[in-house]
């Protein structure tokens, strides 16, 4: 079961080389996607293409595309079989799956592009065909008619600019199922153009309509209709989702980091893409090293409780009863692990603070060693350094303190020496203070801050009980899974606010002293 993506807008024709590169790119993505993503019922995969600045392939291939695009589905029916141990069958199935999906995706884009081109050229065809075919019989075009030419030209230009603005965008993600609203718009455009052509063919071409002004007005009406469809596209695709209707709570399953967001009316898959965009710059980076309690705290959980059964026949009853007794006994036993946890935490915090103090001092001192060369000063050219050399010069004095600090806060996988040097060079170039330099290391930043190729995952799985093209409703819960963690998203409707008015006369604010009041009774 595969579907295609669609529509729509107006796009340039793609070159053959571009599409083949895209083809290759997409096939690779598919292979990885089907291998990772297919598990369980109703789980579909979203792919987020990489950042435009770094990911050359996707920008060059897709820049002329709109945000329609690649929608594919993972074959869910066979998903339970795919967990088989036989790699060969799995790879073979992947090969089978990827090829038809690629073709369908390209087909979708091609259909959209031709539809767009057709609808753009149709008014021009309407205008050009009568003079070409029956020029002698045609009435000459008066002033009103020529004025309409100008109107057609400008409206077509506006249509072109509008669709460039709206549709020529690099797609943010490849959605698992068809984007329903876009498909509807494509169908609408298709019906519109076909009906206009039918009318034109029967009433104008066949009948050899003599009044050219009528033909021109007909063409103008088509351009108007296309502009209104464009307006509809703006409203459906862009504006409808802006007004907040739902509040989403997004919680990361491993460490409980959570955020709340407001969204408007969207389908579940589009909301998923939106949340992923927010995730990368709102959530602190996922650090697996920070998750577990230290082993020393958890080690003593073994219960030395033994349970003996005296003369019982029913064995199954026995085992559950036994385990329950063991658990209950373990719970009742006085357990001091919370104490150890508390002291361990306090000790760790003290250590972190000490290392942090050393780091701050080291960096401050290091920064005092260099200063910017002023224009007036004359210095020996051998002494003048560019930012990179300046960074290398002062890095040595702070390197040890930095390394110790990163190790204590378990951040060292995220910062290589090269990245620290680059950051230092960056800060020196822009006259930043030591505190600004350290901001990056003292607190765990959002994922997008770190070295992109390492930490930006493109592959997410959307797990949902409802079909993902359904709109959001109150109470929907779905998951966005990665291999190590998942984001649990729950929806709540924004309440309806009853606002009432109360008028306060500015002169009614009066006060008395509370000292000695006298009341008559």
């Amino acid at each position, binding site marked *: 079961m595969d579907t295609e993506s669609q529509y729509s807008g107006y796009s340039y024709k793609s070159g053959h080389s571009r599409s083949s590169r895209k083809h290759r790119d997409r096939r690779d993505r598919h292979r990885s996607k089907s291998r990772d993503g297919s598990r369980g019922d109703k789980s579909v995969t979203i792919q987020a293409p990489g950042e435009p600045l770094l990911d050359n392939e996707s920008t060059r291939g897709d820049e002329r595309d709109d945000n329609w695009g690649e929608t594919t589905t993972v074959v869910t029916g066979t998903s339970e079989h795919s967990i088989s141990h036989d790699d060969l069958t799995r790879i073979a199935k992947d090969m089978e799956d990827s090829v038809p999906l690629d073709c369908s995706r390209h087909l979708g884009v091609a259909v959209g592009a031709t539809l767009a081109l057709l609808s753009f050229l149709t008014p021009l065809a309407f205008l050009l065909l009568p003079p070409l075919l029956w020029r002698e019989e045609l009435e000459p075009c008066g002033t009103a008619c020529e004025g309409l030419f100008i109107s057609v030209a400008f409206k077509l230009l506006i249509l072109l600019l509008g669709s460039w603005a709206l549709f020529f965008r690099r797609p943010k993600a490849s959605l698992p199922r068809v984007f329903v609203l876009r498909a509807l718009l494509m169908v609408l455009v298709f019906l519109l153009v076909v009906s206009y052509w039918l009318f034109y063919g029967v009433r104008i071409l066949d009948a050899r309509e003599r009044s050219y002004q009528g033909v021109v007005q007909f063409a103008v009406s088509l351009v108007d209709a296309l502009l209104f469809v464009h307006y509809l596209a703006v409203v459906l695709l862009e504006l409808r989702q802006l007004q907040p209707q739902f509040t989403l709570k997004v919680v990361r399953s491993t460490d409980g980091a959570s955020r709340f967001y407001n969204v408007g009316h969207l389908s579940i898959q589009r909301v998923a893409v939106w949340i992923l965009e927010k995730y990368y710059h709102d959530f602190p980076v996922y650090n697996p090293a920070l998750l577990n309690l230290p082993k020393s705290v958890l080690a003593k959980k073994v219960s030395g409780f033994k349970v003996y059964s005296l003369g019982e026949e029913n064995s199954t009853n026995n085992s559950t009863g036994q385990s329950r007794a063991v658990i209950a006994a373990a719970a009742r036993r006085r357990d001091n692990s919370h104490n150890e946890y508390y002291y361990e935490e306090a000790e760790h915090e003290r250590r972190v603070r000490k290392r942090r103090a050393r780091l701050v001092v080291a960096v401050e001192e290091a920064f005092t060693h260099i200063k910017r060369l002023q224009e007036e000063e004359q210095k020996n050219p051998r002494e003048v350094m560019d930012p990179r050399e300046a960074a290398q010069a002062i890095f040595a004095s702070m390197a040890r303190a930095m390394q110790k600090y990163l190790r204590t806060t378990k951040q060292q996988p995220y910062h290589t020496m090269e990245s620290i040097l680059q950051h230092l060079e960056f800060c020196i170039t822009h006259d930043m203070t030591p505190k600004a330099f350290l901001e990056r290391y003292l607190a765990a930043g959002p994922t997008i801050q770190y070295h992109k190729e390492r930490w930006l995952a493109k592959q997410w799985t959307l797990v949902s009980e409802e079909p993902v093209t359904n709109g959001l409703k109150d109470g929907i819960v779905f998951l966005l899974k990665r291999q190590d963690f998942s984001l649990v998203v729950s929806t709540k409707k924004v309440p309806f606010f009853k606002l009432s008015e109360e008028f306060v006369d500015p002169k009614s604010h009066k006060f008395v002293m509370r000292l000695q009041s006298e*009341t008559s009774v």
Partner: protein
Amino acid sequence: PTPLPGQDVAPQRVEIHKLRQGENLILGFSIGGGIDQDPSQNPFSEDKTDKGIYVTRVSEGGPAEIAGLQIGDKIMQVNGWDMTMVTHDQARKRLTKRSEEVVRLLVTRQSLQKAVQQSMLS
């Protein structure tokens, strides 16, 4: 009844019959004091930290005057309710209950001479 320490005269029982004036039942006197008020401004109290309720004014011919309430009296109880540790507003409420037509007050007062001295000095 024996006089309280600090007071020269024994506590008096005063029974006031409220007078109906239009919609309200009035007693015909004014009170000052309360635990939310500043006790140092009270001209009638002997102990300037005393936060009790004092009668600050008695209107002429009113029910309070008829019943024998005097200016400077400290109201200890109203119909059994204690008035020595109440806020000003609570005191007012206890005196002006619409359901009660008669209020029985327990008051203490200093001797007349001391009261005059106090009010002349303040």
